[in-house]
């Protein structure tokens, strides 16, 4: 049975809120923004058909507050909620509450979110369904002699990980027998301190691991397909920085095999909506289920670009109850796509975040260039949320051409007012390991010297920088002689005129 959606509340902000609203608009669906105190000027409020204020800047009192979001949805009579990524997107309670209130949650059921959200349960489910997982235990281990036995079965090196964990906390790599017990105890106590739960599990440690994920789509009629892989091994402190598809490591056989397992993984939980199965892959093409993300990923646009499918539209159609229109054999990758995430951060200064006012922005254009952003000139990036400014998605027929195009687009991309990661991303594009496609998740760490090296050409542009600063100061001094006669005049006209005068008659 089809339930037509006519108004979607987007329970998010930033680029992903805009991205969702774009697809709504194309489908003729009204979109509703919610915003916190500091987001009145945010682009998603301006883009939406309706906008509801939901509270203070702190996420817990606005974007993470289930009651406020549900109230907003009821106020505007939205028939569906799209959670984006982050915030409430993988919150089972939120999905359940929507269900209870009769609002369509554009995402999976609370049960699926809960199953996939708990790492041990997810592992168990995958093993039962025949999806390869990293060799290791499924359960919390207590007895130390059992642990020693298990570790010997799996073979060193191993990882000890917190079941409730994330972000590297409660995690220990062990490569020597004598360190096993000490590492285990440290991991458990850290897990307890961080998550209030000291459950841990043991995994085989994969050296030279590649982080490769598969996009899946499932409808409410039991059909599941995959839309091929994304290579996400360029990571800094477990944060993805650059993604691409196809993966340079991939072969058609491996893709078919991993794709089948990704579909099996989704079917194991009767998955519907868009989801991602993350795998660890080693250089010998062994692969292991890592986790499932039950939402849209930040990097979903590269899949859209090579397969041609609008994933947000697919999510909405699935939520309405439609059957998938395409079959597995219809899916192919046309060309190559790369995404770079542009952050407001100071890459020369330990990647410190750099909030502030955007004074000027020029976005790259032309063939094969997509930008998904949300900032504009005069916009102040708030200190309270994620430092991602935009995503630059490049397509070309070949990987080599895509890298050249990415370099060209990064060259064109000018953002001033805040520091950004653009120059750092250019370095990644120039890095031999990346260009050759011979990289794994240790890429950034292995190439730190190359990526952070000072550029020798810097000195030759010093005089240019000095002269420009001089001229700007000089012209400011000149203009302070004259008090503006009429601030009623259009500033831009004035700017144009001033420039014209400067050209034509100033001497």
């Amino acid at each position, binding site marked *: 049975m089809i339930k037509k959606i006519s108004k979607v509340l987007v329970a998010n902000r930033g680029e992903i809120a805009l991205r969702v609203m774009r697809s709504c608009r194309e489908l003729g669906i009204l979109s509703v923004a919610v915003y916190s105190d500091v987001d009145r000027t945010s682009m998603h409020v301006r883009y939406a058909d309706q906008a509801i204020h939901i509270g203070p800047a702190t996420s817990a009192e606005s974007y993470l507050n289930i009651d406020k979001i549900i109230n907003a949805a009821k106020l505007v009579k939205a028939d569906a909620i799209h959670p984006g990524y982050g915030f409430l997107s993988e919150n089972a309670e939120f999905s359940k509450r929507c269900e209870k209130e009769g609002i369509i949650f554009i995402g999976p059921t609370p049960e699926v979110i809960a199953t996939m959200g708990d790492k041990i349960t997810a592992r168990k489910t995958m093993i039962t369904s025949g999806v390869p997982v990293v060799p290791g235990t499924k359960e919390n281990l207590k007895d130390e002699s059992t642990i020693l036995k298990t570790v010997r079965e799996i073979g060193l090196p191993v990882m000890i990980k917190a079941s409730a964990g994330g972000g590297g906390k409660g995690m220990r790599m062990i490569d020597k027998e004598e360190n096993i017990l000490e590492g285990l105890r440290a991991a458990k106590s850290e897990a307890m301190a961080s998550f209030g739960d000291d459950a841990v599990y043991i995994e085989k440690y994969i050296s030279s691991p590649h982080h490769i994920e598969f996009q899946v789509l499932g409808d409410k009629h039991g059909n599941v397909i995959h839309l091929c892989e994304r290579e996400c091994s360029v990571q800094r402190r477990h944060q993805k920085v650059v993604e691409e598809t196809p993966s340079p490591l991939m072969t058609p056989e491996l893709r078919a095999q991993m794709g089948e397992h990704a579909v099996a993984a989704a079917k194991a939980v009767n998955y519907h909506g868009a989801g991602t199965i993350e795998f660890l892959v080693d250089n010998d093409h062994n692969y292991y289920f890592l986790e499932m993300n039950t939402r849209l990923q930040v990097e979903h646009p590269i899949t859209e670009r090579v397969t041609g499918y609008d994933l947000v539209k697919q999510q909405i159609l699935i939520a309405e109850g439609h059957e998938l229109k395409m079959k597995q054999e219809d899916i192919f990758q046309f060309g190559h796509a790369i995404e770079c995430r542009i952050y*407001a951060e*100071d890459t*020369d*200064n330990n990647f*410190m*975040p*750099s*909030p*502030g006012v955007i*004074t*000027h922005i020029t976005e790259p254009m032309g063939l094969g260039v997509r930008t998904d952003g949300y900032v504009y*000139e005069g916009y102040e990036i708030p*200190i*309270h*949320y*994620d*430092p991602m400014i935009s995503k630059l998605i490049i397509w070309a027929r070949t990987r080599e051409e895509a890298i050249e195009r990415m370099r060209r687009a990064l*060259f064109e991309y*000018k953002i*001033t*007012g805040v*520091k950004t990661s653009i*120059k750092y991303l*250019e370095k990644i594009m120039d890095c031999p390991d990346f260009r050759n496609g011979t990289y794994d998740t240790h890429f950034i760490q292995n190439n730190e010297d190359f990526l952070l090296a000072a*550029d020798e*050409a*810097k000195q030759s*542009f*010093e*005089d*240019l*920088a*000095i*002269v*420009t*600063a*001089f*001229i*700007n*100061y*000089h*012209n*400011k001094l000149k203009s302070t002689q004259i008090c503006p006669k009429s601030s009623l005049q259009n500033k831009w006209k004035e*700017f144009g005129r001033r*420039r014209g005068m*400067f*050209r*034509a*008659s*100033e*001497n």
Partner: protein
Amino acid sequence: MAIEIKLGERMAKVELLAEEGNQIKIMVDSKEYNLDMLQVENGVYSVLYKGRSYNVELIETDSSKKYSVNTFYHSYDAEIIDAETKYLQARNSGNLEATESTITSPMPGKVVKIPVELGSEVKKGDTVIIVSAMKMESEYKAMKDGIVKEIYVHEEDIIDGNQPLVFID
């Protein structure tokens, strides 16, 4: 008009020799340049030098005399050193002590925690304040041993970049 401009460690003497429309003749230290130079957008200059085309972006920081300058791939910090600046510098010379005593954050953010109190005794390297911006927390540490003499902010306060936060003496 001749002034000094500080670029990183370098101190350059700059003199404007001639200016006609957007054509300028300018001396930087001992090198003379003929440039076609034009502000095309807010803070964006287009510069032609010997037929080559350059784009330079300027951002004013803190004061009207300090700039962050971006050329193609490089960022520079430039400061106009005029008489006023020199006077202030002279007055503040030997004031390294002061810099070490005042804890600041280079970026705006929100004060998450102040693990010290007025009168606390701290050692060099002790964390005295934690600031959060964009989901990332940064700890600022004492740069010398001493006593916390002033705390200018409270937990939960929103702060600007380079604002004094804690004073240790």
